[in-house]
């Protein structure tokens, strides 16, 4: 029973982590409507910048502002120099341009930091674990991720749904010209919001640093997953992205934890393990296909 509870908690935790990774993308892709394949690269930039500063200074917490600043600047620059020219064009042009950016960023990071992964350890403050329940130790850092993830979820929700900035960004995603004709400089606004999305990606990169590997190509690994989260949730819905993250996290964790042993009841051990693992690794895609077949616009599609 504790094991089940623990797995559930793991699932939720992983879900929040996914949301953290996907938060920036819900802004850039979900709300602004830009298909940004370079999102993973910005995540990588944040991780590298933050980790590098942390390595140089020996302080994880000095790394955070560095990660945020680097990611936000890079994001704003991407918007200003490239994406801005593509809003009017076909979405596919965005695909090509941001694909090009992936190549460029990977190479630039290699040039600057080399091919070896960087290392940052968990800051002492967040190291170690606490007993959540008797017999259930839980790493503090993971709890920190949950807290940050929740804060961002709430903050983003308020920003998008309750503020004028949110309204204007949503308005701009359907009709830029009209927003401008009503006296709002959508261009600056979009640069800022794009930068904000990038900043969130950078934060995710920094947070992921101590538990994953900070290496070239780390962005591509999370790219698809984050898109999956946004789409399952319903493009443009923060609430949807959050629920989808949790759902994915729990489903993925539970499948990995319990599917093989369930299959073992009906077939021989190793085959069950392999098949179970196979299905589990398809898990998020299966889930997405199912969700979209039942609700073609995702879980929380806006009613339009």
């Amino acid at each position: 029973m504790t094991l089940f509870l623990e797995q559930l908690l793991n699932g939720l935790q992983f879900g929040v982590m996914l949301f953290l990774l996907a938060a920036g993308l819900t802004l850039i892709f979900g709300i602004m409507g830009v298909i940004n394949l370079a999102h993973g690269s910005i995540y990588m930039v944040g991780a590298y910048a933050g980790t590098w500063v942390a390595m140089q200074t020996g302080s994880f917490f000095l790394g955070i502002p560095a990660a945020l600043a680097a990611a936000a600047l890079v994001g704003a620059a991407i918007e200003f120099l490239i994406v801005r020219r593509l809003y009017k064009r076909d979405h596919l042009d965005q695909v090509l341009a941001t694909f090009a950016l992936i190549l460029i960023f990977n190479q630039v990071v290699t040039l600057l930091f080399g091919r070896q992964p960087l290392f940052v350890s968990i800051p002492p403050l967040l190291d170690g674990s606490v007993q959540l329940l008797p017999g259930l130790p839980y790493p503090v850092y993971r709890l920190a991720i949950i807290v940050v993830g929740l804060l961002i979820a709430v903050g983003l929700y308020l920003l998008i749904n309750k503020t004028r900035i949110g309204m204007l960004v949503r308005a701009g995603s359907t009709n830029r010209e009209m927003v401008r004709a009503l006296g709002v400089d959508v261009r600056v606004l979009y640069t800022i919001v794009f930068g904000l999305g990038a900043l969130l990606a950078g934060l995710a990169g920094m947070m992921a640093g101590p538990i994953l590997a900070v290496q070239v190509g780390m962005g591509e690994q999370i790219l698809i997953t984050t898109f999956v989260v946004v789409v399952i949730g319903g493009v443009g819905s923060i609430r949807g992205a959050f629920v989808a993250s949790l759902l994915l996290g729990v489903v993925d964790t539970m499948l990995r934890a319990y599917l093989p042993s369930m299959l073992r009841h009906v077939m021989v051990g190793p085959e069950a393990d392999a098949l179970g693992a196979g299905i589990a690794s398809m898990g998020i895609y299966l889930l997405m296909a199912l969700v979209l077949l039942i609700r073609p616009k995702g879980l929380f599609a806006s009613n339009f």
Partner: protein
Amino acid sequence: MLSVSGLQSAYGPSQVLFDVELGVGEGEVVTLLGRNGMGKTTTVRSIMGLLKPSAGTVRFTGREVSGATPETVARLGVGLVPEGRQTFPTLTVRENLVATASNRLKRQNPWTLERVYALFPRLGERAGQAAGTLSGGEQQMLAVGRALMTNPKLLILDEATEGLAPVIRAEIWRCIEALKAEGQSILLIDKNIHVLKRLADRHYILEKGRTVWSGSSAELTANADLVHRYVGI
């Protein structure tokens, strides 16, 4: 307040405006008449900066604005009700009104949500509905309300009564009259010439991208054959 002279504009290679002259004075209501496809909307777009004019000048409150960005023009005090409504479909009615609302020119008694809802009770009833699901006429009201909420010096209405029920249309005319009484400058594009004659001070007629006639309502009435030739009445 607004003066346009020698305006030329083109969509890519095809030139649409050849020589448009237009002026709107302080507190004046002016109309732009012409058949379909003569360039009325194009003129509005060129004034707004949505389309870069290839020649000519546009001055607003004394400032040269030809080639300026749309937000600059809007910020100087031009409010637009565009052709084809162009409401923001994913925003709710309330959000459509609030998102771009402002009172940059510090007008006393500015337009507020309440005033707009009072003008169009239908919008109040639908405040939480996504604009994309509104009926055509409701969207039109929303577009008008949205422009009013920017509290402009000059209001441009491009076929703002298209698709409105006669009662509502009459309501809008009344509203325009009221605005005029308040001293609001208005540029109107509409096909209800009879009403326009009563409401407006002066008229311009466009023919194939050129201003071919301008004059007062009285002159317009006097020149029925001219109106017939250019506008088809």
